[in-house]
Structure formats: C-alpha cells, structure tokens
C-alpha cells in the first residue's frame, strides 16, 4: 500500500507540472493584450481660430494613423472633439465621447446643450451635467492657441478617458 501512496503522490506532482506548463503561458498569453489600445497623448492642430463662430460648438474629427494590433493604418478617424470659442476668444474643447457609456455626444443648437442620444445624457454648453445617467460632466481636453505662419490655430491635446465612473481617469 505504501507503493500505491507513493504513486498517488507522484501523479499529483507530475500532473501539477503538466498543468503549470500549460497554465503559465496561457495566463501570460491572455493577459498580454490588456494594454492594447492605449495611446500616447498627442496634439492636433484642428482649426483656424477665425473660422469658428463664438458660442457655437463645432465638432472636429481627429485623423491620425492607428495601430490595430499588427496592422498599421496610415490615417483614419480615431475620435472627435467639440470645440467652442467663447466671447473672450478663449477656447474650450470637449471630448465627444460620452462619459456615461462612450457614445458620441451631439450638440443641439436650439437648446444650446450637448445631448447624448444613447441614454439621453444632457450637458450644458460648458460641459456640466443637466440631466441623465452620466456620472460626470463632459471631459474637457487641453486646448491652446498656436500661431502658425501668421495664423492662429486651435491646438487640442487629445486623449481618451475611462467611462462610467465619476472620476476623470485617462486611459494610459
């Protein structure tokens, strides 16, 4: 019977080794894709300051090259921003991604509010919450004005944030 016990012991040791050989690479393999889709903050020159009407937000699409796992796309839309010029010529830029669940937020010119069609999240034109299920106001992006060849351009630092939580956390 001692022999039987010894063999049972051997079986469990050997099958553990077998399981480890499979489990360790499996976990490494599965979890290595967790970091995918994280992009560095980039700045984009989106529009000339003079082309914007004060008080009316406009949406601009961010075009950049995009790496999707192994494929590198030379250029394509990676997101969009709402830019509004205030009366004092200062600039506010919002990510058009709804902080609730990530739909694209629209602007309703008549009511002067941002409105997300997915779950009726409504925001003031300064980004704060009016009504709806969203946990925080619209995500403001760093925007500045840069003079290029004598003309004033709006430069926006585009980044993405986690949705569905009250804090504004960058996905980086």
């Amino acid at each position, binding site marked *: 019977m001692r022999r039987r016990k010894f063999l049972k012991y051997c079986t469990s040791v*050997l099958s553990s080794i077998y399981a480890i*050989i499979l489990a360790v690479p499996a976990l490494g393999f599965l979890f290595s894709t967790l970091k995918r889709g994280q992009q560095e903050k980039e700045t984009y020159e989106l529009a000339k300051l003079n082309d914007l009407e004060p008080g009316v937000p406009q949406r601009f699409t961010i075009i950049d090259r995009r790496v999707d796992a192994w494929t590198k796309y030379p250029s394509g839309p990676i997101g969009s921003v709402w830019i509004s010029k205030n009366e004092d010529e200062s600039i506010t830029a919002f990510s058009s991604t709804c902080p609730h669940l990530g739909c694209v937020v629209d602007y309703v010119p008549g009511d002067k509010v941002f409105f997300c069609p997915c779950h009726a999240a409504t925001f003031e034109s300064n980004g704060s919450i009016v009504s709806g299920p969203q946990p925080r106001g619209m995500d403001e992006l760093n925007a500045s004005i840069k003079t290029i060849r004598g003309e004033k351009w709006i430069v926006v630092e585009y980044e993405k944030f986690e949705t569905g939580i009250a804090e504004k956390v960058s996905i980086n």
Partner: protein
Amino acid sequence: MLPEKTKKWIDERTGYKNFLHAIFLLNFPTKRRSRWQFIWGGALVLMMLVEIVTGTLLMTVYSPSEAAAWGSVHYIETQVNLGWFVRGLHHYTAHMMIVAIIVQIFLVIVSAGYRKPKEFIYWTSLLIGGVIVGLTITGNPLPWDQKGYWSYQIETGIAGTMPGIGSTLRSLVVGGSEFGNLTLTRLYTIHVIVLPVIAILLFTVHMALIRRERLRTAKIKEAADDPDVDFELDEDDPLKDEITQPYWPYQTTRTLVLTLFLIGIVIIQMMTYPTLKNQHVDYELLEWEADLHPSEIKLEAPADSALPFVARPEWFVRFLFELRHMVPKDLEVLVTAVLPGVLLAILVLVPFYEKVLGEKWGQRLAIAVYVGGILIISGISWYGIQTERSAPDYALNRSQEIAYAARASWLASKNGVPPEGPASLLRNDPKSMGPLIFARHCGICHTWNGHDGTGHYIMEMKDGKKVKATPRASDLAEFATTKWIAEFLTNPRDPKFFGHVGSLKGGEAILNGEMSDWADSYVGPEGILSKADIEAVSALLAREANRRDYEPVSEAVIKRGISVFSGQNFKDKDGKVVDFDGYCAQCHAMKAGDPDDEGGGAAPDFNGYGSAKWLSEFIRSPGAEKFYGDKNIMPAFEESKLSKHDLNLLVNWMRGEWQRPKTEN
C-alpha cells in the same frame, strides 16, 4: 480539497465518484513485464490536450485572411507575452504526436493488439493517427508564410493528381482553384472544428472499445481466480500472465512521466531549434545580407507567388514528394494516389495476416512490413533532403529566402503591417525587389558584381555545355561611386565597363570611341592626368549622384576636379598651370564642373549624374539627345516594359537607398 460533506452532497446529485471510478479505477490488465508500453496512448491524449489548450489560445489572436494571417502570427511571436512559447508548443507538440503515433502503432503490432477481439481498437487508432496527420497538414499553412503556402501547394497538388476525384478534392480543400482568402478560412475551419470533432468522436469510440475489452479480460481473470467458480484458464493462455491493477495511480504516473518527457523534448527543441535550423547554410551569401540573425526569424517571408521560394512538403509526406520526382511522368499517379492507398491497405489489413500465415508468422510479417516500411520511407526522405542540400544553388537560394524572411520580419516590427497585407512589405522594398527586377530586365546584358543581381549567373550553351555567359555591358555594382568612376576613367576598355560592348551591333563605336581614345591620351603613365586628378574628377561626379555611401571630400579636391572637368586653371604634376585639351566639358555638360557651360554636348549630360532622377530618365530613354543620342545601343525601358513602381525600386536599389536599421546610419 473539498470537505467530505460537500463531496457527499455533490456526489448524491451527480454520481461523480462512480464516474471517476469507472474511468480511473477500472482494473487494467497489464502484462507485468511490459507495463511501460501501454502508456503511449495516454501520452497522446495528454498531448492532444496540450494542442487543444494552446490552439484555443492562438485562436484568440490569429486571424485567417490573406492580409492578416502572417501579421497576426508575427504579432503572436513578437508582441504577445510568451506567444512564442504557446505557438512553439502547439507546433512542435503536433510533430511529436506523429512520432508518438508511429511508436504506438509499432507497440500495438508487437504486442498483437490487433488480434481478436481488438481489431476495431486497432483500426480506430489508425484513423485517429490519420486525423492527426490531417491536422498537421492543415495547420502548417495557416501562418500564410512562404513555407506553409508552398508546402500546401505541393500537398494539394498531390491530392489533385488522384484519378477521378482529384481535382474536385483539391478545389474542396483549397476553396476554388486558386489560393487566397477562401483557402485560409477553409483551412481554418477544417483545422479548428472539423478534424478536432472527428478526432474526439473517434477517440470516444476507441475508448469505449478499450473499456469493453478490459472489462471482459478483468471478468475472465476474476472468474479464473475465484475458487467458487468452475473455470480455469489454459496453461498457455496469455491472460494467465496478466495482473490487474487500477489505472489510477499505477498507469497515470507512468503516462505522466512519458508525457512530460516528450513535452520536455518539445520545449528543448523550441529553445534550440531556431538557432540551429539554418546552421547548414551560409546565410549571408553575396548581396543577401539578412537584417536579423536567422535565429531571430520567427516566420518565413509572407506568402507571395512572385518571390522565389523552393517548395518543400512536411517531413512525413516528403517521401511521396521525392518519389514523384523519381518515377517517369506517366507513372506519377501510381506514386501519389495508388502508393498511399497500398500503404494504408497494408496497415489496415494487419489483423488478417494471421488468418493466412498463422499467429506467429502473421505477426512477424506485420512487424517486418511496418519496420521495413518506415526504414524505406525515412531513407527516401533522408536521400531527398541530402540531394536538395547538395544542389549547386541550394545555399544561394536558401540565403535569399532567409534574407527575405528576415527583411519582412524586420520591416513588420519597424513599420507595422500595412492594411493591404504583409506581401507589400517586400513588394515595396528596394532591397528585396531590386535584385529581382535587375535580373529580369538588366541582367541579360549588365552584371552586378559579376552576377545578375540575385547571385545567379547568366548561363549559355557553348559546345553543348552550360557555361557562364559573357556579359555584354558594364558591371553596375557601386555605379556612380568615386571608386567606380575612377576605375572607368582609368580604363574604359576594361571588361567591367565597355570591354564587351564590341560584340553588339554599334558597340564598336563605343568600345573604341572617344572616351577610350581620351583615356589612351590623357591617363596612364604617359598621360598628363595624375591618379589624384582622376580621383578628384570622380569625386566631383560622385557628388552629383550623392549616394548614401558618398564621403564628402575637401574643397581643394573639388576644385581640382572642376579644373579637370572644365580645363580651366589646370595644374600639372609639378603644380604649374598648363593648357589641358582633354577636359570633360568638351563633350559632357555639368553645371557643377563648368559653371559657364550652357549644357548639351556630344556625350551624356552629367547634371545630376547617377541621381535617382538621372538614372530613371536614362533607363526610360538612353537614346535621348542628352544621353547617348544616336550612339545609343541600350534598349529603352518605357512604362510598358518597366512600370514606374518597379523603376523606382530598381533605381533606389542600385543607389543603395532602402530603409536600414538605425545603427548603420
């Protein structure tokens, strides 16, 4: 692990204990002497489990389409943590399983495992072996690299020669008549669903048959040992020698030892094989320097029928491939369709040998046929590999393939795979395509370091023998470098330059034309031009080309070059300003050499000489007024002959312009 009470609670509702007992505590009659030989089947099951787990992991990244397959496998190898390990385990374990099947069938034959009542156990194991071979054949082309692509071409080609059903069968597994997206999706479906499901069904039947047989043996044994039952086994009954033991833990331990041993070999192979696999070839032959060390190459180059690749089938079907070359064309069907059928029949009919020859000789025949067959097949395969490797161009072709594989991997890591697919990595790369374009269009007359750009020599028939052909025009390696120009100026009649053009129509005028006369009069010991003068004017010309390997020279040298080119302010060997009638600007125009020159002359225009623009224009129309004019004997390569894309690649390659690892810059 679980408390007794919980176990009981679950068992009352599921009966799992009985289930496990049925599987693991089933009495296993084993011959005391040869217990170790019954473990190969178990090891095969455990290896199949490895394949299922690693295969499922690979499925989470792999993408079966022409544009994505290669890139996704490259991504697994280079980006995914332990991706190389998972893929390596999947790949090499599959090959180990084929080895294990060969051993297993041998052991079955040796222990007469095919004898009544076990015929069906034997036949199902043969079928499972066939499915595993099928899995390997459908798995290998999935990365869609040159190796997989071409070996699948051969394998489906062999299938296509079968009489009657051949072409339909081929279309069915290829997804039409041509290779492409549908080939991959079809392969993928067969590989991940169809064959695994068939394998599992076969395995279930196989195990059910084994269980039935074991239970029967155990019952007979039990009856024989029971004094109350009036039953006695004959003295010579083989059951007499058998003892019964539960499968667990006696057999499981042995099975696990063997499995871990085999997987250990697989892991060692995974670690060492990449560095060993190209050891037999000098992978940096001629121009084919690889961008990565061969041990870092994970994949062959992306599948591309336009790039040269010597197709080789998988090792276990290699003998069919070799035999196909050994027999006359009319007998090919015999080898590709009849022979595999005969081999299969020999294996399937093993249980019936004994009917004819009796147990003893029947089994001996089966062993002889099996071992002999394997030895013959190995011999043919080994012979085939040796013949291939000793072929005259093998090292050159293989180093070209390695260079392409390395280049594609390097470019993919550096730039990412473009959306149109990995094949365009090499198709838009001067370093990869330049030699091929040069060999196709220019190599008929010109040479590149003596060969045709790819390292092959142009051959021609002379007195019934194949000999290296005599080139008809200049050698263009290092064209427009200071060294090349200086060599030319020193002796235009050299075989490397105009030496052979005399044999061409109108070539005489160039061979013994004004350029040669000029060299006769002004260069050489008698001539007025010193070696430094020649080098100065060469550097001046090379500056126009501005190749990446151009090394800027001092202002004084340029000045000296200008004086040679324009004939103004020319100083002889003693430093005295003298008249010089042999200046270049008499015939050649070049702003940098003679600012007063209006351009135009009897000989080629040197403004921008050797630059991408100049070269492109020259190749398009060498007979233009600004180049050779009516003296021209080179054919013009218009758009219809040489596309703009190819011309750019050719010109960039000739000038050594291609993306390189940073360290070289």
